[in-house]
């Protein structure tokens, strides 16, 4: 590499053309409910863990769809699996199994 005396800062733009969807598809296979989210935020609003630590299933799903795995996992690691989000989800998403499945597929 030639040193030009400056570097190009990485773009903050997500390049959907280059996105790897393999893991997300694998996730959708074991918990198809991940495709049902309409991002209403009920889960985050009622989340027991979110009172202490940034926790958001809604945002995590969105980030996983954009292949932002690390950020997504950070938003789920504080989850206590209490199940409140399952109860409030208007789409009836099986949130607890979804969170466990995300950890199983991405959290290695």
């Amino acid at each position, binding site marked *: 590499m030639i040193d030009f005396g400056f570097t190009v800062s990485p773009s903050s733009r997500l390049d959907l053309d280059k996105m790897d969807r393999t893991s997300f598809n694998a996730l959708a296979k074991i918990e198809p409910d991940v495709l049902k989210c309409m991002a209403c935020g009920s889960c985050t609003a009622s989340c027991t863990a979110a009172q202490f630590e940034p926790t958001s299933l809604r945002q995590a799903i969105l980030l996983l769809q954009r292949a932002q795995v690390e950020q997504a996992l950070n938003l789920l690691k*504080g989850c206590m699996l209490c199940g409140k989000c399952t109860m409030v989800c208007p789409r009836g998403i099986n949130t607890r199994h979804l969170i466990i499945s995300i950890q*199983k597929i991405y959290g290695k």
Partner: protein
Amino acid sequence: MKSIMIAAAQSVTPSGIIDRYPNSYNHFVLPFVIGISFIIVYLLIGLIRVLYHLTGEDRMKLLKSLFIPKTALKNIRDIFCDCLIHTKIWKRKPLLGYMHSAIAFGWFMLIVLGHLEVALFAPRHLEGITEGSLYYPIFYRFFIWMNPAHETLRGTVFFFLMDFFLLYVLSGIALAMFKRVRSIALGMRHTTKPSLADRVALYSLWAIFPLRLLAEGFTADLSGGSFLTKPVNWMFKAFFGNELNFMPTWWAYSICLGLFFLAMPFSRYMHILTEPLLILFRNAGLKVRKPRKGFAEAEIYACSSCGLCIDACPMNTQKKNLKYSSVYFIRFLRRHNNRKINEIADKCLMCGKCAAICPVGVNSPEIRRVQRETLNNNLKFDYSYLDSTSAIEKPKANGKILYFAGCMSHLTPKIIKSVESILKASGNEYEFMDKDKGICCGRPLMLSGKTEAARKTIEANRKLIEESGCTTLLVSCPICLKVFKEEYNLKGIRVIHYTQFVDNLVKEGRLSISKTSMSMVYHDPCELGRGCGIYDEPRHALESIGELKKAPKERDESMCCGYSLGSLTLDDKDRGKIAESAVENLLTNKPDCIVTACPMCYRAIRSKSTVPVKDFAEIFCDNIKLWD
């Protein structure tokens, strides 16, 4: 025949009993000897394996329990009631209970009396293997000649008893055959499909006793007999003559016994031998630690594959879910089918009904939980935020009641509001621990198999509770209650559910209740009823308000509402179906309203009920005089 008798006329005992064979051996005993030797060796190896996989601590616990008189007595009682008499099945379905006790207790008595007979009349044959102690008592009637002239009263009593118990067993076998043909007649909707080993064991079991009757019938004129074997002897002698059938029937009898024992370890009938071990383990207070080894292995082999759990499972409202029943779970555990094991383990609602009705008492939800542990315990979660002291405001409840509503109750504000009203109305001072922020009790994590993670939240909550200085912890969610009681080890703090709290207030007359003409039915939440054994308090308290109606399935047979946190994979639609059938059960006797005492059940039943659904605290709030 005559030559045999002459050859045998050597060792005459005082009671006129003669060994017909000097060396007390005949080739026909071989199948039986092979079978019984196999099963004894198999059992020994199995026992060593199971004991080996117990933790050292558990082994000590087990050993100690055998010498504690109270536990030892309980062991004997349980083994007698559960393994021989089958009281649990009697209570549920008397006909089925009779069938089981006839075969088990009847056979047991035949063996005991058989040995007793030998011990009394031919004690020499119990002295060692070489004397035929393995088989002689079983085929006693073949080996002896009884001088009718010397028949004593003692002998006659034995003859009678042996025939009586043989008849008892035969009646059980007849019922069993009938049941196979028409299982519905005995009140079972679903029953399991038998495997090859099951069939071999089953048909040989069916054949054993009729063959015994025939065999002993053929020898009844030589060895003596009573009301059953004697007539058989007369009849067959008249028809066939004796010599022709004598040996073949004894051979067939022995072969069937041998086959039964050979097939036993691979069949459902293994439970006959494993159940006593399970009882010892359970009474010693051991816990399942691995899903396939130690205690769990004893449970797996104690399963009789009877299939009662198929009918009991709340998921059976849909036929597609029948395959998730405990009996299949255990079958797959036996076969090491990991994919299926995990699928069933994750699907289960953990409502505990299968364990409650299991005649053997196999606690399969617990095995499922441990199975979940194997996959989920290591998933990365991080609760370091709970360590920071500023994360949560510390409740102060010196000498007062500390009220913990729990995550779910915050979605049912009615419950919280009613509990608070009752606390105020009864003049109790209290502190609301999780009014603003609360930490999960840890039970959902445990149910998901994340036991290590659960310890973290449990520890955080335990600290808050103990440092609050409270005397009583009042809980409105049965899910929390169970874990507070079992895992928190709160010293000097009474943990009670609000149904118990209200019941106490009613008993002490501290609530002015206006009795109504309303009729109610009470839904037992799984974690409160089967989980914590609280059935009577809510019922007793409700009777002070109105008429309490019964549901066909209630108390320990109560149906799960379907929204249990236990299941990881059951979807919303299937849960809704379960809720519907739970409501149907509750409305059978047409009550004016349904009362329950769990935020999950409350929401689930409300969403499907056609009559009003009230929370336990709510209905008291509606019917007591409140003052602020």
